[in-house]
């Protein structure tokens, strides 16, 4: 009886979730390509240098936006809808509207990225896409978030559990962050360095309050579901959740250490960053104490292997992040490529790895087709290896960069930057490995979602007719 109920939910999710996963995959490939172009330009200034469209600064910014909003946004929608539907034991409703809003979201990002490459960039962190696309993105996000909340409101059980808190919080925090930033930067713009504080706060909070809780929620859902055992020390989860909610919005501003802003801003950021040890420890305890009770199953079930890779990466790199927020360390490393380490560990090593695991778990359930074992295994090993190389290169390169930059006697380009050059070359090859890895992932996902490419074209035709009607 229970099985059929779940099958009904999965069937209701099929079109919508497939759509979001398929588009997330395409954005992942676009971001991988842009990442390679940017990395290649850092090692060889003549690479594609005759196209102003592909200037390093533009490509780099476009890559971050494609990754966070394209891949991150679409996969967040898929994860939110499916997990909320499963946990609420309710079907996904308003599917045509969801597809319409999803198409709008993707269209908005496409125009936004083209706008960046065409030179209409905004000066605000993670809000670089041109001003005109943001209302579209906001409306489409609101439609999707509203319909996700409708699923949650029609749940069978009143009691909510950890994955629901994290996923709902992430769903609600993004539009709130956006409205705060949009009001302070575009509607009532302030002068001087005030917008810089706000845009840095938005850009960093986006990672901490949108991507992070979503991935944590997915981990809180997947680990006990696959292992078939409850989360160890579950009573700590609520403490961890409210710690993130209360501390994360304050902790992100430590990046302004020594900058032209009032001193209390970076100081409060540092204090709160150190306090972030608590929620990191809670999540880490919950995940790993549960997972390590049955380590052989974690190793053998591939989705779980992805998720645990993600949670370990979250734990380690968050602690590393705490160390780098201490003022004396920050003075050395704050403007080095250690920033790339922080960004990539969060979006690749943590968020993406957990989403990969979830997709591998979810896709067979909603489509009834399994992805080949060797393809999945190839994807895991190349991703894990690529991410590890990438992060190590950025970490060691960042330390080198930071320490040498503090020696005023060393010439900037011939000593400091040329010492970091080898690490740029390593990251270029890491991005090649990751690109292939993601290509395998996306091809396999598309093969499962659209088993017959010709049927796919007709299906998408009738879908688009449905949308316009």
């Amino acid at each position, binding site marked *: 009886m229970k099985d059929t109920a779940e099958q009904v939910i999965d069937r209701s999710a099929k079109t919508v979730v497939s759509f979001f996963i398929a588009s997330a995959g395409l954005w992942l490939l676009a971001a991988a390509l842009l990442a390679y172009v940017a990395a290649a330009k850092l090692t060889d200034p003549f690479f594609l240098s005759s196209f102003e469209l592909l200037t390093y600064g533009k490509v780099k*910014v476009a890559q971050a936006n494609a990754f966070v909003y394209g891949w991150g946004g679409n996969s967040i929608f898929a994860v939110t809808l499916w997990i909320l539907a499963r946990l609420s034991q309710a079907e996904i409703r308003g599917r045509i509207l969801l597809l319409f809003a999803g198409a709008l979201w993707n269209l908005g990002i496409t125009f936004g990225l083209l706008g960046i490459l065409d030179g209409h960039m905004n000066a605000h962190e993670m809000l670089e896409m041109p001003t005109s696309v943001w209302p579209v993105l906001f409306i489409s996000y609101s439609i999707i978030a509203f319909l996700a909340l409708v699923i949650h409101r029609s749940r069978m059980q009143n009691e909510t559990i950890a994955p629901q808190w994290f996923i709902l919080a992430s769903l609600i925090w993004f539009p709130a962050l956006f409205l705060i930033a949009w009001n302070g930067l575009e509607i009532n713009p302030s002068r001087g360095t005030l917008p810089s504080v706000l845009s840095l706060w938005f850009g960093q909070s986006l990672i901490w309050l949108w991507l992070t809780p979503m991935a944590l929620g997915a981990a809180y859902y997947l680990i006990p579901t696959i292992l078939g055992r409850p989360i160890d020390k579950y009573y700590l989860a609520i403490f961890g959740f409210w710690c993130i909610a209360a501390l994360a919005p304050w902790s992100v501003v430590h990046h302004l250490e020594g900058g032209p802003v009032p001193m209390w801003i970076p100081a409060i950021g540092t204090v709160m960053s150190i306090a972030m040890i608590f929620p990191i420890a809670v999540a880490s305890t919950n995940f790993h104490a549960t997972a390590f009770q049955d380590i052989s199953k974690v190793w053998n079930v591939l989705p779980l292997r992805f998720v645990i890779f993600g949670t370990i990466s979250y734990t380690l790199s968050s602690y590393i992040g705490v160390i780098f927020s201490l003022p004396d360390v920050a003075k050395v490393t704050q403007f080095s490529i250690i920033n*790339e380490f922080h960004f990539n560990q969060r979006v690749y090593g943590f968020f993406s790895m957990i989403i990969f695991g979830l997709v591998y778990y979810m896709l067979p359930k909603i489509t009834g087709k399994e992805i080949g074992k060797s393809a999945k295994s190839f994807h895991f090993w190349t991703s894990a290896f690529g991410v590890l190389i990438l992060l190590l290169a950025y970490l060691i390169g960042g330390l080198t960069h930071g320490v040498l*930059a503090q020696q005023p006697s060393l010439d*900037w380009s011939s000593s400091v930057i040329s010492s970091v050059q080898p690490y740029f070359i390593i990251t270029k090859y890491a991005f090649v490995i990751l690109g292939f890895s993601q290509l395998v992932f996306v091809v396999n996902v598309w093969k499962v979602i659209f088993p017959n490419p010709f049927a796919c074209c007709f299906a998408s035709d009738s879908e688009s007719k449905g949308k316009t009607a």
Partner: protein
Amino acid sequence: MNNIFKFSFGILSTLAFAWLAFVVGASLQYGDLSPEVQSFEQNGSGWVRPTGDNDFYPKDISGLAKQGAEEYLALGCATCHTQQVRLFTRKGDKGKRVPIAGTDIERGWGKRASMPRDYILQNHVMLGNTRIGPDLANVGMNEYNDEWLHQHLFEPQSLVAD
């Protein structure tokens, strides 16, 4: 936790506190900075502001420089360049922190640390967060000739040893 409205109120109020500090509080503290005279004149009644407007800081930049700032934004120069000379301090007597010349100043990127007032007339403030290139906050301090700058922007490899 079970009521979505109470739950939303809780998680949004944590954001609202941060907003009160970083947006409302910070703008109350230094949102109304305006150009200020740099020197005072002495007359019969003591030190007063000079009457002329020749001595105000910061001054608005020229139209050509504004055009340059737009290009700087559009090309994403802020990805690799910062525009802030950081304030370095050390513990002085009685545990109070006193400013010192940090490595940014020793590198010749400015004569003093950047202050919030330096930025109030800029349309787009791009503090930046990565220094793959040098800091450009006071790049106008250096005396470049036009030809060198032009060549440096178009083919830097020909000028800077790699």
